[in-house]
């Protein structure tokens, strides 16, 4: 049995389970806190920082911070909304994201967040990095141009002995995702599909499967990100 506690999110009193993460508690109270690197049920990593909230006045990531009795959480303030927008913009300028030509368009969390947060032109100059498109694996294509380094693939995709297949290489702005050189024959169709699905953007693609579902019928084509949690009608506009 879990213990229920009271917390406050943006002035609203909420009931939460002791020890659950703030994002989960918010979700159960129909409050959407945006996330990108987070995956339900998998140990959080706090990489993208988009879920940043203020807990008793301090900046914390909602995906990694457990709720505690009496916690006062600020999430949708003008300051935090702008912070989140700026982080989304940073991810756009860091890579090469050409949404109209991307296989993941409509299913991409980064794109969906940009719509929700009304990102028009980023305030930061584009970095236009020169990055590789790696098609050496028989099952998947890795497009480094679109990788947002969220570590989802590292955390979720393992081989049948539980070993990592994906990993980070180098550090700082030189970080890139690598695929284990010995993993080629470990990629079953199933694992490849799972990898593509777990990637929030179009950086992991299953060969020949990019447009299985037509554009226009995809997840975020139908309803804005977060609207399922907020339980609002499709027509709710993006914030601000």
């Amino acid at each position, binding site marked *: 049995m879990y213990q229920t506690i009271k917390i406050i999110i943006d002035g609203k009193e909420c009931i939460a389970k002791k020890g659950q993460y703030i994002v989960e508690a918010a979700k159960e109270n129909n409050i959407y806190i945006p996330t990108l690197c987070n995956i339900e049920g998998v140990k*959080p*990593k*706090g*990489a*993208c*920082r*988009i879920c*940043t909230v203020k807990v008793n006045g301090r*900046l914390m*990531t909602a995906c*990694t*911070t*457990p709720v505690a009795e009496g916690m006062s959480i600020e999430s949708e303030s003008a300051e935090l909304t702008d*912070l989140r927008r*700026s*982080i989304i913009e*940073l*991810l756009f*300028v*860091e890579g090469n994201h050409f949404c109209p030509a991307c296989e993941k368009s409509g299913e991409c969390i980064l794109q969906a967040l940009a719509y929700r947060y009304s990102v028009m032109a980023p*305030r*930061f*100059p584009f*970095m236009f990095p020169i990055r590789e498109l790696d098609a050496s694996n028989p099952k998947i294509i890795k497009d480094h141009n679109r990788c*947002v*380094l969220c*570590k989802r693939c590292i955390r979720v995709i393992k*081989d049948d*002995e539980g*070993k*990592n*297949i*994906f*990993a*980070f*290489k*180098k*550090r*700082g*702005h*030189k*970080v890139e995702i*690598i*695929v*284990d*050189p*010995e*993993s080629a024959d470990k990629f079953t169709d199933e694992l490849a599909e799972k990898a593509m699905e777990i990637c929030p953007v179009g950086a992991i693609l299953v060969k020949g499967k990019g447009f299985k579902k037509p554009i226009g019928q995809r997840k975020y084509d139908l309803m804005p990100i977060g609207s399922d949690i907020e339980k609002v009608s499709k027509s709710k506009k993006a914030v601000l």
Partner: protein
Amino acid sequence: MMGATVDTILSKYRHDSTRLMDILIDVQDEKSCISDDTVKEIAKGLKISMADVEQTLSFYHFFSKTPTGKYTVYLNDSVVAFMMGREKIAKAFEEAVGCKFGEVTADGLIGLFNTSCIGMNDQEPAAIINNRVFTRLTPFRVKELVKDMKAGKDIDEMYSAKTGDGNNSHELVHSVVNNHIRKEGPILKTDVRQGEIIEKITKMTPEEVIKEIKDSNIRGRGGAGFPTGLKWEFCRRAPGKQKYIFCNADEGEPGTFKDRVILTEKAKLLFEGMTMAGYAVGATQGILYLRYEYKYLQKYLEDVIEKAEKAGWLGKNIGGRKNFEFYIRIQFGAGAYVCGEESALIESAEGKRGEPRDRPPFPVEKGYLECPTVVNNVETLCAAVKIMKYGSEWYKSLGTAESTGTKVLSISGDCFHPGVYEIEWGFTINNILDMVAGFNVQAVQVGGPSGALIAPNEFDRILGYEDLATGGSLIIFNESRNILKDVVLNFTEFFIEESCGSCSTCRILPVVMKDKLVKILNGLGVTRDIDDLLEWGKILKASRCGLGQTAANPITSSINNFRHLYTSLLKTKKDYETGFDLNLAVQEACEATNRIANV
């Protein structure tokens, strides 16, 4: 270890993947690189994937997949190194060796590499060659050194001067590094007999020991300033059979070198402090996390540990007391400033990339191998021993009401007496400048790049948690220095180089801000750019650890305190300027076609 195979190295660490750092360090030392084949062998031996080995390996500056040369030169590129003539030294190396920095000679004899601050700011320019430190280099010395390398001389035979002061001349250290202890206080003074404090505390309960430390109000000396007694208490109370004491000797903040001096001269005191912390929290294992740059101290420190074990001050039944058990081992880093952050340090000690963890949980609850862990700075642990000797009341009589005790400072830059000074908290910057003889001072960087750049109108501010808190690095710049180009840009590049890359903010924004700074330096800035920099700096506060949270400080604190330096560079009255310089963009093409860039 000469002649060790990968297999014997793996066996030495019992095929334990949490010892991957040690394994990679031994392999690198043995083979001068860690090739793909070796990665495969290690992965197989540890039952992890090659990608796993690769992700740790590629994180650390001192690991390399290609040979780094029979002689590997790492030349410090900190701000102070440049102030002391690094450029001439680098040029001399390149000329004498015949290759550029970042390269190895065709015959594989010599490799030249840059590296972040190596903790020798008081004796720059300095370089590490095959784990030996060479200080106060001159172009002449460089030629001599390269000649020696070409003659195949043993590294220890390449010193031209006598070995340094104090234990630097100890046969197990044998180094030309100097301590430069210029002001001794209670911590640096030698007045504790080995074992004295262990005898004292074993007559007390662990709770009494913690209370004494708490009563002294001492706060952590590594920079974050967390109350030490409270940290020990949290760890003592945390459930868990096995607990650990880490001593943080990563000392990576540019301009800090006092821990190096304490390690050289006060190792016994430090190990007694760790043992005492172990007694207080109920830990039996201590780990000294030592930056790779200080590898030259390894033999000496291991010897001190071994002798303490023989004398009964470490090991089982310490001081003759049953059930008091404590061991210490050294864990080396491999070149990553972020590993000084306590949770990154723990990750690194577990054989992983030095990526800070999300908190909570804090190390005192879940640290090394998921066990409750105390991480304390070198100086904190030494101070704790002195508090036990003289009492918390005595300690509180030193310093200020809010900042009790003394602080060991590392002072470098433009002054006559760079070195290590132990002062009471409460000194003003003016007091410091009088003490070290700094003249025509334009600015003082307090607390390293992550601290603040202070202007003369604020030199009456005091060092202490109530005003200017610092881990101890002070760098002085005189009026001849170009603050923005030589200091702020260098510091910003340092953060870019050292970010672990995990947070989007810290990975991307410092690069964006650096580009903007360069735009201003190139005379293409507008007022809006300065405002943008201040505004963008705030975004970094959403980063996971102190590195990202302070990465904008060099830029924002110089804008706040030296705004005129920025505005004087704004050549254009325009509201907006792309920063694109067409002449610069076509320069290369023009040079190739023998034309003058003038579009």
